């Protein structure tokens, strides 16, 4: 693997470190002190060994001398243990609080994102970035602090200790390190790219399996089981072959490491025998004890290199995670807060689009072009058009999920960009196409969030559930209002989820309802009853409705017909039936002529 790309990995890791808080940096410095102490003690150990060796060889000493040296050795070992426990504590503290900080930074950032940024990352990817990626970085930092700093210090220190004790031994150690580096480079060069490829192949395998699962009825209906299995086998074989190659390469590592260690010990003794043999009488004992000690230091040196290599193996993965985290943190939200919290008096519940055009950044085509209309307090304005006509986009401009490219959207006489987001959001009761249900209770789902008017009462909740035609099924949930709702509402049917989500909007007592195709999951009867109840109980509230069914919007005060991002008709059902050909087509495709009359 080219050194350059390694350097790139390190830069990414360092980039994320700038988000480290002062306290954490201080802790890093503190742990540095203890790491040095630990290395010092670790390397002191063999010194006492030398002493003992000398004592034993010279022969005329008391046992107490040896015990004293042994006691010192033990003290060193224990001191080293204490130091390393402290370092482990620091490392764990730094890693966990750093990742907590990152997680919070990221969460806050995502909360500030508009739909545009969310979509550009995709929700699934943002979730992984906030969880798995951060865990990766956390593990790397904890390990890195313990190994990455310690290993080079140990290596350098140990080298200085043995430097003067015989170039022959030093050469043997150098050769061992060299061989080690070669083995590791081979492994890294061949195995790591494979591992990265394996990631992609695993996704591929997942995709094929997912296809089979989501299309299970189609697969069965077409008797395509063998076809799917063959496809899976293809993906499976490719994955297995890569895995085989990578794992076989990896299996070289451990045996080779121990061969290097043993080989080095042997070499040191072998060389030692010749050195001692040719030395003068007086030097023999010194040389001998040097040899014993040398071996211990040499082992430390090789071990440090191994540790560093471990870091190199971990690095690519952690740095990819780091990069993905930084990407999120450094993205600038496009939707910024205004200053106003109040609106023009007497214009409550009024929505006006003034020559609004919208296109996605980098897109060539406009999704909406020159849209203008006004909705007054208590009116219902509906939007209809075929798929891709821009009706959902239009409605997304009102709560500033996106900002207009040209023109302006005014609410209560004020441009939506001038409001603080909180003040703006307090005006809406929003029901998305796909119901969002939170884990908790029925009540916590309906009385969700904050409308700036104080807490909701149980009566509010019950009323809104009644309006949303949900009383009957809520009655049947064990615990009723306190009944548990699973994450994603998996214990509710699609229609029930949608009704709860409508109850949530009603509970807010907003100035404006936004229904983004919210009625399609309901059957006609419930749809009708619900709309009646809304009309009756919340007649002051302005409603914006995106719909597919003519039946849902027939009674709207104003229907805006969209075609390829342009308004092709505005009026009531009766007016449009006379004047707007697009509307007629839509209507005729759903109802027969007599029924429309």
């Amino acid at each position, binding site marked *: 693997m080219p050194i350059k790309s390694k350097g790139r990995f390190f830069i990414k890791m360092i980039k994320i470190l700038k988000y480290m808080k002062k306290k954490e940096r201080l802790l890093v410095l503190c742990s540095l002190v203890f790491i040095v102490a630990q290395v010092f003690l670790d390397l002191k150990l063999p010194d006492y060994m030398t002493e003992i060796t000398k004592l034993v060889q010279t022969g005329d000493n008391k046992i107490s001398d040896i015990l004293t040296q042994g006691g010192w050795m033990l003290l060193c070992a224990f001191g080293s243990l204490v130091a390393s426990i402290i370092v482990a504590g620091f490392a764990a503290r730094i890693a*966990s609080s750093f990742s907590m900080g990152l997680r919070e930074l990221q969460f806050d950032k995502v909360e500030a994102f508009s739909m545009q940024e969310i979509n550009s990352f995709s929700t699934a990817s943002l979730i992984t970035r906030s969880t798995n990626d951060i865990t990766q970085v956390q593990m790397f930092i904890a390990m890195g602090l313990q190994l990455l700093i310690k290993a080079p210090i140990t290596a350098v220190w140990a080298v200085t200790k043995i430097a003067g004790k015989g170039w022959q031994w030093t050469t043997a150690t150098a050769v061992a390190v060299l061989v080690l580096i070669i083995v590791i480079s081979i492994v890294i060069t061949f195995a790591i790219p494979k*591992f990265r490829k394996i990631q992609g192949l695993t996704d591929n395998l997942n995709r094929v399996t997912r296809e089979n699962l989501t299309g299970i009825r189609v697969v069965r209906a*077409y008797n395509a089981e063998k076809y799917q299995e063959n496809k899976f086998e293809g993906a499976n074989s490719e994955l297995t072959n890569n895995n085989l190659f990578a794992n076989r390469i990896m299996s070289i590592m451990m045996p080779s490491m121990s061969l290097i260690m043993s080989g080095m010990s042997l070499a040191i003794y072998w060389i030692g025998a010749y050195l001692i043999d040719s030395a003068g009488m007086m030097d023999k004992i010194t040389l001998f004890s040097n040899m014993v000690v040398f071996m211990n230091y040499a082992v430390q040196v090789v071990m440090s290199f191994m540790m560093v290599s471990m870091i190199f193996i971990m690095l690519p993965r952690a740095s990819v995670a780091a990069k993905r985290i930084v990407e999120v943190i450094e993205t600038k939200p496009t939707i910024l807060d205004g200053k106003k919290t109040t609106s023009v008096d007497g214009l409550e519940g009024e929505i006006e689009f003034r020559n609004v055009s919208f296109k996605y950044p980098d897109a060539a085509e406009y999704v909406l072009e020159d849209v203008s209309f006004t909705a007054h307090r208590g009116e219902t304005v509906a939007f209809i058009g075929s798929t891709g006509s821009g009706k959902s986009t239009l409605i997304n401009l009102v709560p500033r999920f996106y900002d207009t490219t040209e023109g302006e959207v005014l609410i209560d006489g004020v441009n939506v960009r001038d409001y603080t987001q909180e003040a703006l959001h307090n005006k809406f009761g929003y029901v998305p196409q796909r119901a969002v249900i939170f884990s908790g209770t029925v009540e916590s789902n309906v009385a969700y969030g904050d409308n700036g008017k104080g807490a909701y009462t149980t009566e509010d909740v019950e009323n809104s559930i009644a309006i949303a035609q949900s009383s009957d099924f809520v009655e049947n949930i064990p615990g009723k209002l306190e009944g548990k709702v699973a994450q994603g509402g998996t214990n509710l049917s699609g229609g029930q989820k949608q009704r709860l989500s409508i109850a949530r909007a009603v509970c807010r007592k907003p100035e404006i309802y936004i229904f983004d195709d919210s009625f399609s999951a309901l059957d006609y009867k419930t749809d009708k009853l619900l709309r009646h109840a809304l009309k009756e109980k919340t007649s002051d509230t302005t409603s914006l409705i995106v719909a597919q069914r003519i039946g849902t919007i027939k009674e709207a005060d104003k229907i805006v017909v969209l075609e390829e991002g342009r308004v092709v008709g505005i009026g009531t059902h009766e007016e449009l039936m006379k004047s707007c050909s697009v509307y007629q087509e839509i209507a005729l495709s759903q109802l027969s002529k007599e029924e429309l009359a």
Partner: protein
Amino acid sequence: MSKNEYEFEENKSSPPTPPGRGPGMGGPGGMAVGGGEKAKDFKGTWKKLIAYCKPFLPIIIIAIICASGGAILTLVGPNTLKRITNFITDGFMSGIDLPAVTKICVTLVIIYLSSWLLSLSQGYIMATMTQKVSKKLRSDVSEKINRLPVSYYNRTSYGDVLSRVTNDVDTIGQTLNQSIGTLVSAATLFLGSLIMMLTTNAIMTLAAVGATVIGFVLMMVIMSKSQKYFSRQQKNLGAMNGHVEEIYSGHNVVKLYNGEKDAKKRFNHINSALCDSAFKSQFLSGLMMPIMIFIGNFGYVAVCVTGAVLVMNGTISFGVIVAFMLYVRLFTQPLSQLAQVATSLQSTAAASERVFAFLGETEMADESHKTTKLEDVKGEVEFRNVRFGYEDSDVTVIHDFSARAMPGQKIAIVGPTGAGKTTMVNLLMRFNEIQSGGIFIDGVPTSEITRENVHDLFCMVLQDTWLFEGTIKENIVYCKEGVSDAEVVKACKAVGIHHFIKTLPQGYDTVLADESSLSAGQKQQITIARAMIKNAPMLILDEATSSVDTRTELLIQKAMDKLMEGRTSFVIAHRLSTIKNADVIFVMRDGDIVESGSHQELLEKGGFYAELYNSQFEKIS
């Protein structure tokens, strides 16, 4: 509304995913002990796994022999070094017997090299074996998917099955690869070094083993204490995952309802709990390495001191100390490896348990004995007193359904959600098996022919436009063999999508990826073309147009009318306007037919259908 309790610790809505244990790099997870899940039936699962690996047993045994062989050869090392040391110390006065030293050294080089070779072969064999086992497991799971009844997928999430194919099998592959080889060589090293030490010197052995045991007792205490922090860490990670997923995917609602503060409060709560448990578990796993080093050092000191005393007494030679210094290392090292293997065997078992549980699910009945085969059917379909309920519940979904479709008729099935419309189709296709009664095609009960045969008789178009990653042509031809390009073009012309496909840069060879630019209607047109290519004598349309808007529906309707020509067709529809021209409409409610007849007849009758139909148009009064 302050009754929102943060019960994330008990939140069991989804099993927490293990953090960052993706595939790839068995890497230096090294000393991170714990955190692994436990299997419910450790022994039983291992028995199953071993039985599963049976074809590989001979080769596994070779690997085991290699592993222990390599370990034994490693053990010879220290003893030989002892002899060299003795040669040296003995030679202080008289000069060292260099040829003898060289001879020993050369022997040792050979021993080390053979040990290396044996370990290499062991690693190679195990890597190969585990990958082959993983591959087989994956294939088996994939085939199993197609042998389970459709109803199984009503109660299991796709994610669950997916994670068995990838995560669980990967875990098995990785842990198996590392654990078996390590287990054998570590056990051999452990026992071997103990024996070697004992044969060399008993007192020294006592010192070495004693020191190590003290260290290990310490480590065990820490490990057992730390277990609860690891599981708490897993739980908190799961809670964090759940919360983040919920908030991110409901981003628009959270924002518009000003729910950020509440979400942040809960996030902070979980985040600080996570930080705390992360600190504890990270710290405890960070302790393992220092403790191991300490145990090593402690043993080293014990050996040195005891050895030195013994040497001075003249009981042993200095070489013994040298040998013991190495033995202590060979003795402590496998101990920590064994501790790791224990946890990794646990995760293997936990993962295997899930995979084998899936492989052990009840499959659809075997039909290889059935010989009746229906071909060239006229298309008469009869339901006679059909009764059905899912096997895992007591609720009867279909009570007593009887109906008859004559060849070439268009049959519509309507009714509110949950009335059992799709269930009927599933029974007709034998995706689910009826409990009593019978379904007859041209007078032959479908239970007497194979499922495959039933499937061959129907074209099917579903609400979810199921397309896979591949070219448009591949998607249309699908698994049918011998389809010419001309036929594909003909089908596409018939459904009115040929022109659109031609405008694409690669035409029929355009690859449909995840975010392809096809509209819902275009996707549906492709699946209709696929059904046309299949050209079966009967047709099922299950909410085929519900996901498209009504104008697009008009286009597709033409394509479907084309497809229905001359075929007995069953149409399930949400929008009543699409089925007004059906020959017979079955109105279903709570699993039974409550009315049947033509559109006009039913409207005149003024019953449930009329109510359903009219509710679309009533005015708000």
